[in-house]
């Protein structure tokens, strides 16, 4: 009887230690390739800002439920369109992983191209202006006539800067 006591105590201790782990929320769910492909087009709605199939936000029950819903819809013969509509009704447009290419969201898709075009035009403009600029020695000034700073003032400022920042 006395020999059994430590064994019993150890077993109880192990059970107590395991208890929190056994009560962990779990979310394992196996997805088909089709489910993964469709799931990649939606965001997890738990607020983690991750794509649904990539959310492994520890203890995230939202992604588990959404993936389960997705899997079940596919198993019941649901199409990508019907699944999308279902999620849209449930969560609104924020469920999309990327902005749809219509309406106000088009702005998000167009802006990077606009930036690139404007930037390129700007670079071309700068290059052509630099090409046209007459070659002058920096010390001789070269400041435009409209400038409030005369070449002498600029030279003085340069000399002062050189003096101040001597190492």
């Amino acid at each position: 009887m006395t020999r059994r006591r430590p064994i019993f105590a150890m077993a109880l201790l192990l059970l107590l230690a395991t208890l929190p782990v056994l009560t962990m929320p779990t979310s394992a769910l196996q997805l088909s390739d089709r489910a993964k492909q469709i799931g990649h087009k939606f965001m997890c709605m738990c607020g983690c800002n991750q794509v649904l199939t990539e959310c492994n936000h520890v203890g995230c029950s939202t992604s588990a439920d959404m993936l389960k819903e997705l899997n079940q819809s596919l198993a019941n013969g649901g199409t990508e369109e019907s699944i999308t509509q279902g999620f849209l009704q449930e969560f609104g447009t924020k469920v999309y992983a990327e902005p749809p290419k219509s309406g106000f969201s088009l702005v998000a898709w167009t802006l990077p191209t606009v930036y690139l075009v404007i930037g390129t035009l700007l670079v071309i403009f700068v290059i052509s202006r630099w090409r046209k600029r007459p070659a002058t020695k920096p010390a001789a000034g070269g400041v435009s006539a409209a400038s409030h700073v005369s070449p002498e003032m600029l030279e003085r400022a340069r000399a002062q800067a050189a003096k101040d920042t001597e190492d």
Partner: protein
Amino acid sequence: MDVFGSFALLLAFICALYAFVGGIAAIVTRHPLLVKSTRQAGMATCALIFIATFSLEYLFFTDNFSIAYVVSHSNRDLPTFYKIAALWSGMEGSLLFWSFLLAVYVFSVLIAYRNRNGELMPYVGMVMAGVQLFFLTLSNFVESPFKALASPGANGVMQFVARSDGNGLNPLLQYPEMVIHPPNLYSGYTGFTIPFAFALGALLAKYPGEKWIHLTRKWTMIAWMFQSLGILLGAHWAYAVLGWGGYWGWDPVENASLLPWLTGTAFLHSVMMQEKRGMMKVWNVWLVFCTFLLCVLGTFLTRSGVVSSVHAFAQSNIGTWFVGFIGIVLLVCLGAYLKNRDYLKSETQLDSVISRESSFLFNNLILLVSCVAVLTGTLFPVFSEWFTGDRISVGAPFFNKVNIPTGLLLLFLTGVGPLLAWRKTSTESLKRNFGLPLAIGIVAGAIFFALGYREFYSLICLILCVFVAATILLEFYRGAKVIRARSGASFAACAIDLTMRNTRRYGGYIVHMGMVFVFIGLAGAAFNRDVQKDMRVGQTMQIGQYTLVLQGVDTKPEKNYTAQRMLVEVLRDNKPMMMLFPEKRRFVTNQENGTMVAIYSTLKEDLYVVFAGENPETNLPSIHAFLNPLVKWIWFGGVMVVFGTIVALLPNRRAVFVLAAAPQRAAQPLPHALSPSVTLREGHD
């Protein structure tokens, strides 16, 4: 100690206020005593911030659970290692930590230039004090880390109380990298304050724009290095802890750290145009201003909760303060620029479109377009809610589509830029420099295609990586060959000698090579595979050439958490290789869960095994295994980027030697390839 820390923080605020207001008075009156006293007030501010920070750390180490911040972010069983990290795990502590790191920089600058740059330093000191003043205002009056814990007593009057234990640290932060990732990232954010202070100071002092660049180059590079390291450590943390199989999810907080890195990188390149040709003075000033503002914006995004993120560990309604600060800084920068812009005129002309100058312009364009596109995507959910009432999410697929092409363009310029000559590049030079690397790149592309790497962007990326690596290696080879002809030493020794003769140029090449490795790693992402399976003990699953056998599930009680661990045997081609132990952790104090991924990493691929929990339908443990090719190259590339930056910060060996031995060596002619104008003077990349 809490009163002591709180008092130190208040005194720091008063000193910073004096350094700022007194600094303005010193600039106006130019009174030497006032200049000296404001500089000393600046140093006192830093010392007091150090005291306040160490006081808060002391409260963590001594488990002082009468302080609200300590209660919220620590507990008795929390390992000492993580009690250090608890300092920046919440809003109040992280703001104090911002001030602390900024104080380290400010103190270093004030000490380093105490007897130099007499006219410029009052301006610089005043700007630095202004930034410190903002963060000290937050720490003193908005989010104090020294608030005592209180609760209403029986009579309804608030009474100080102390808890027996704290709530513990967020499980996601209980990982070794979380002790070094935030300090690095914050050192990057805060470090950009120094070039900002010099740029604004120089503009206010009407400096024509050449000298502040020289003074701040090393500070900018240090900040950039920390920012790069911080981003990479953050990516590695996300990879090893979050367990989704990736390292970069285009999360708003990740994006926030990338934005100043992009503008900082643009600045480090365009600054050479100013040093070498006296061009882009206005552009450089604004790049520094924008980099600093993006650092503050990054902190705002992380702290305000305006965008949701798994990385935003500390959020509150502090956003208004940041918006106000960003607005004021922007107005001051704009005012200073409009008033003194005539001092920033460039005089030099561009001789040819095919030149280093043009490549830098396009490099800046790509970096800036990337930055603005990422910023737009990050803030688009907020804008869409303002304009339409609907919040539209912008996730990783959008950012990948927008940024992969620009990233590839940038990679191409990384190879092209350094090989173009300043002013003008001849056709012969183009053929000589690019012929071989281009051929090597095309041959490599054909080999990759034959090996089955046919995903368009990945294939292009790998071809460009080989091309860029070839251009860099050829540069080292050509330089080392000249030295070898004279010294007869080995190629490796000659390459080291070459690097040390012009650390900035060859350090830069090492950084570029590091970026090539990072891009190789990124190209691998297109070929990621994953399998998830419920497993009984003894069952197997196959992924690539690996067979995983579940040998058991056990429980490992630790001081601060209890781990459920999978014992997974890995076989390659049916030969036993090793055991992997992916874990799920349950933290005792806050009843939160954490995960610990098991990774077997090689240069070819990572076997990444996650304990995905228990399937509620089968009650069986589930393994989620990923096979991620080439990931290790990213971390290796990151180390190389940091190493290259350190090399670029070193003084040129030869320049020192030549100065010391000038009389003896004056008569010896140098070979053409090592003429002083090309390799010996600092500032020539």
